[in-house]
């Protein structure tokens, strides 16, 4: 937001003055991520992950464009062109491992970003639009990652594509024609591979567009903060640059250290060995599992094993899997507590740490495990909790909970005092 005390951009030399008149790009940068953007002074490291997600997106686009120069999207040669990249292209192994592990780290970062949003209820007014756009980004990321995984045309690529596109077959009446239309055939084949490649190349740029909207929407209210108390005075803020550029720089360093350690020393840790076997429509792998970042949702899909009245189990699973993400869209209106931060919400906090987090952990674990007992029964209990948490517990908790006292302002929370502090004005945000 243009807080009245935001510093104004002053072009210092002739060139900058010229640019500022004709195309005020430096001013845009100054106001968006420079000294002209006042930010709460108390952001924790949990606020680093947005910038890191942006970094991952750029990393994926750069490595992806290079890979696309050497990759051949044809089912006859896709697998060997991937091996050609690994063996014969100069630094091709680095590009491929960077891209494959980059996708995993992108999801790690975005999951932390989303769970930051859950805990601090960043989705609440006035930030609903930021959140909605975020969920759109997440859906686009899942589509992109799914189609990207198909490209090397290994066993998991092929069978993953078959299982996931098969989900459309669960839609009554029109399901199978839709599935055939999406795949360009009755099973994944060259037609499917070609369109997946085309879309996999396209979607990251769509994501980039939505990210721009996301950040635009962010700049209207500005960032929230760990107290959830809105900015009141200039003392609550510091300019983005140099304070948060420096903090994000340090965060990026730590991120790159971990990412590169995995990239150089455990590049296949998050992958599945079966994807080093070329796709074979005649041989079904013993356990078909998607990439790890889909496991929680895959567990929800497989948790529905019995027909529910007239709804077939498979359709129920598909509905639940998509709804598991769609419910996030409604969070701003489901959670009506006037307090944002989980630090001041005793009951909410318990459900977050002892309900949602363990349920997600169980879903994650069971999604990667074979569809056998006890994993199925565990994921059924966790799925039940998952839906209860977002759709029943959050609305109820927000009505019955008595929040803890909030600090008067961000400044008070940081310094223990706020010269402007007026007793009695300590209202819940």
């Amino acid at each position, binding site marked *: 937001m243009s807080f009245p005390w935001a510093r104004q951009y002053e072009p210092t030399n002739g060139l900058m003055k010229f640019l500022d008149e004709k195309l005020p790009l430096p001013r845009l940068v100054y106001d968006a991520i420079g000294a002209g953007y006042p930010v709460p002074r108390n952001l924790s490291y949990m606020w680093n992950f947005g910038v890191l997600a942006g970094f991952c997106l750029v990393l994926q686009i750069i490595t992806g464009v290079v890979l696309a120069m050497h990759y051949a999207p044809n089912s006859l040669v896709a697998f060997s062109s991937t091996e050609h990249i690994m063996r014969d292209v100069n630094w091709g192994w680095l590009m491929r491992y960077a891209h494959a592990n980059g996708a995993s780290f992108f999801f790690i970062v975005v999951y932390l970003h989303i769970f930051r949003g859950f805990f601090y209820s960043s989705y609440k007014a006035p930030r609903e639009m930021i959140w909605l756009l975020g969920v759109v980004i997440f859906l686009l990321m899942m589509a992109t990652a799914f189609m990207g995984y198909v490209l090397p045309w290994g066993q998991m690529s092929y069978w993953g594509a078959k299982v996931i596109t098969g989900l459309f077959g669960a839609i009554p009446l029109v399901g199978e024609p839709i599935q055939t239309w999406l795949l360009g055939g009755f099973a994944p084949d060259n037609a499917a591979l070609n369109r997946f490649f085309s879309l996999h190349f396209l979607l990251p740029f769509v994501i980039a567009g939505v990210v721009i909207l996301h950040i635009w929407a962010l700049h209207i209210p500005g960032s929230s903060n760990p107290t959830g108390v809105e900015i009141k005075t200039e003392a609550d803020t510091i300019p983005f640059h140099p304070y948060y550029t420096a903090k994000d*720089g*340090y965060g990026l*360093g*730590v991120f790159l250290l971990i990412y590169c350690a995995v990239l150089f020393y455990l590049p296949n840790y998050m992958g599945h060995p*079966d994807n080093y076997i070329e796709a074979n429509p005649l041989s079904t792998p013993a356990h078909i599992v998607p990439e790890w970042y889909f496991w929680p949702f895959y567990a929800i899909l497989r948790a529905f094993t019995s027909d529910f009245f007239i709804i077939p189990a498979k359709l129920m699973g598909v509905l639940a899997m998509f709804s598991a993400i769609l419910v996030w869209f409604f969070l701003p209106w489901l959670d009506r507590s006037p307090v944002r931060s989980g630090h001041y919400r005793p009951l909410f906090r318990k459900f977050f740490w002892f309900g949602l987090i363990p349920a997600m952990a169980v879903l994650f674990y069971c999604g990667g495990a074979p569809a056998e007992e006890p994993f199925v029964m565990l994921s059924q209990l966790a799925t039940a909790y998952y839906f209860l948490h977002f759709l029943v517990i959050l609305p109820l908790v927000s009505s019955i909970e008595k929040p803890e006292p909030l600090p008067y302002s961000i400044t008070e929370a940081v*310094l*223990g005092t706020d010269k402007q502090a007026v007793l009695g004005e300590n209202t819940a945000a």
Partner: protein
Amino acid sequence: MIRPIGILAGLFFTLAVLWSFANGAWIAATEGLGEATAEHEFHRAPEPLHLASDGVFGKFDKAQVQRGYQVYKEVCSACHSLKFVAFRDLAQLGYNPAQVKAAAASWQVPGVDPNTGEANMRPGLPTDYFPSPYPNKIAAAAANNNAIPPDLSLMAKARHGGAAYIHSLLTGFQPQPAELLEKFPAAKTPPGLHYNPYFANLNLAMAPPLVSEGQVTYGPGNPKPTIDQMSTDVSAFLAWTAEPTLAKRHQTGWPVLGFLLIATILAYLAKQQIWAAVKPKKKAVTGSKSSD
């Protein structure tokens, strides 16, 4: 409006999944948690294998990989192809150009007769890839009890355990334990298959390929070609074929991580210095005046 609908939707999904749970629990209570199978009880995880290429400093032991190449050539290549590896790649194992040429020429690869245009076999060139022992999949299956010997180029990455799995598989052939037959009489190894507890479903179509000491004659200065030694060597060779760039990856990582570590420390110090002015000096107590 959203909240009542949300609560109803939440209860709907919860009831549906608990219904599945109840059915599953009923089955588990009446029939138990799935049946025990021979695979569940007798399958073994690969035994650890230590190769020079392991670990964060790992490099290939070229002499060992050369021996493994010899085992592959003299034993495994009768059934298994190696289609992602070219003869020119052998140069990475320390062979000089003349040796690579000679090695390539010692293989017969499919070619075309320059005079008649008919398909024929010709000696390999360094640019050729390792040939397949069978003209097509049907021939491969027909010769091997209906199982197609898989290409070995990526085998060390395509199984849990990698090279250790290959080593365990090659040394793990054994008679079926009496205990297994007692418990699961139906799981008797079918004729033509071979019992091996390291293989996913315990019985595979490959006969033990390495059966006697000295099956491959190693040159002077090399260890004794015991079954275990040959298995280890060919596993090391397949670790190389699966990822010839592995050593380079290991070497490249250190300067990158070193650079990043220094850059991160500098970024941390810079951040500390920039923030020093706005950070409260001590954890302030509510009500006390801040020190700055």
